[in-house]
């Protein structure tokens, strides 16, 4: 399921764009059905069957959480079961000691491969998003087929983005007002831009910095700086291609990048880089935690509640990327950097001189340089762990 240029992938997307609107069923069910075809053609029947089994189990847990008698147990299970599977999958992938254990236990190795092939890290985020919406926000629970379409969308299964459950529910609203030519051209524009990002900008940068067929390894800060620009074009290109595919099919697919290198603060950078993950963290970890702390500590300490909520949010970001102590510490250091950046900015903004046009221009010009240096330096510290030589 790797290539953005796979003819089978584009055939399924194009057919979905033509057929799905004509299906005499609700749009979420139509996509649920079409998605199974996409998964089967691109990933094989084993992958499709595993996606269906995982969906069936998870849907049952959510249904269970809605029954008054077992609500607490169902809620607990709907969070803990996906969480434990996520931890086990990450340990199996990221810990060398787990590799040798898995090699000695073929059945466990098979199970681990199933979850890795399903890109479970992203599926896990969608499960938490769905649980948050269904259990705490009382949104309707989709039928199992539509749930499979939400959890395992074939165009987003490989590397996200993390789609919103709320948006997926809205798929059933009427789309008749949209001009089909405009939708087709808008989608094509996103796809064409993504192809240029990924196969022109990213590839030429990679060849210029790391050589033809060279490995993406960093020996110096400059290498890491080149790598972060390369990562942007590669990942933003992929995200735009999938956004265009989603537009064609009428499946809500979030925007994942918004000119991150023009950000003037670290917080601003992360509202522009891998936006769907940042928004997920904000909706499901940061905001609920900050609200809880404000209720406990009082409104006067709201700023400190925000700083405290950053700690678990960033620890999760670190662990989600790689389940290791190093990456968790990396996340915690980033929490400290973001908190310092925010507190300093708030203090500076209170000064009268900061409101002048000259100060605004200076921030506009030097802000992106400061952000790039900080983000690159942070990545450089953990680059050998994230991308081993």
């Amino acid at each position, binding site marked *: 399921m*790797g290539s953005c*240029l796979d003819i089978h992938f584009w055939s399924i997307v194009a057919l979905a764009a033509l057929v799905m609107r004509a299906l005499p069923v609700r749009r979420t069910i139509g996509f649920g059905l079409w998605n199974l075809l996409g998964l089967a053609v691109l990933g094989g029947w084993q992958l499709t069957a595993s996606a269906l089994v995982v969906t069936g189990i998870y849907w049952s847990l959510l249904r269970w959480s809605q029954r008054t008698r077992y609500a607490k147990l169902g809620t607990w299970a709907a969070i803990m079961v996906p969480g434990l599977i996520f931890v086990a999958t990450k340990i199996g992938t990221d810990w060398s000691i787990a590799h040798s254990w898995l090699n000695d236990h073929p059945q466990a190795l098979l199970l681990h491969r199933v979850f890795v092939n399903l890109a479970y890290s992203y599926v896990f985020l969608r499960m938490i998003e769905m649980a948050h919406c269904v259990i705490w926000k009382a949104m309707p629970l989709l039928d199992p087929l539509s749930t499979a379409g939400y959890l395992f969308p074939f165009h987003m299964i*490989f*590397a996200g983005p993390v789609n919103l459950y709320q948006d997926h529910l809205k798929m059933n609203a009427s789309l008749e007002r949209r001009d089909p030519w405009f939708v087709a051209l808008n989608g*094509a*524009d996103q796809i064409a831009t993504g192809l240029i990002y990924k196969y022109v900008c990213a590839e030429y940068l990679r060849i210029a910095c790391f050589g*033809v067929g060279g490995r993406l390894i960093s020996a110096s800060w400059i290498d890491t700086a080149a790598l972060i620009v390369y990562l942007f074009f*590669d990942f933003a290109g992929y995200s735009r291609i999938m956004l265009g595919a989603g537009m064609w099919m009428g499946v809500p697919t979030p925007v994942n990048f918004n000119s991150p290198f023009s950000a003037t603060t670290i917080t601003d950078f992360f509202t522009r880089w891998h936006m769907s993950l940042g928004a997920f963290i904000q909706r499901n970890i940061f905001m609920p935690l900050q609200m809880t702390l404000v209720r406990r500590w009082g409104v006067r300490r709201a700023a400190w509640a925000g700083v405290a909520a950053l700690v678990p949010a960033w620890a999760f970001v670190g662990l989600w990327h790689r389940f290791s102590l190093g990456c968790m510490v990396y996340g915690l250091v980033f929490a400290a950097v973001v908190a310092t950046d925010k507190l300093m900015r708030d203090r500076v903004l209170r000064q009268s001189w900061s409101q002048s046009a000259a100060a605004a221009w200076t921030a506009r010009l030097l802000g992106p340089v400061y952000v790039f240096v900080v983000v690159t330096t942070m990545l450089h510290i953990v680059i050998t762990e994230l991308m081993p030589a």
Partner: protein
Amino acid sequence: MSINENPAPRRLVGLAIIVTLKLLLFVLLGRTETLHFVYAGF
């Protein structure tokens, strides 16, 4: 402009030209023989 609004035909033609130029640039310059995803495995 929101995607829900119907655009003027002139805008559609403009968008079509931009898309064609971008695709042409991709076809002429795109390096597709060394494809890979660095995010594989997430």
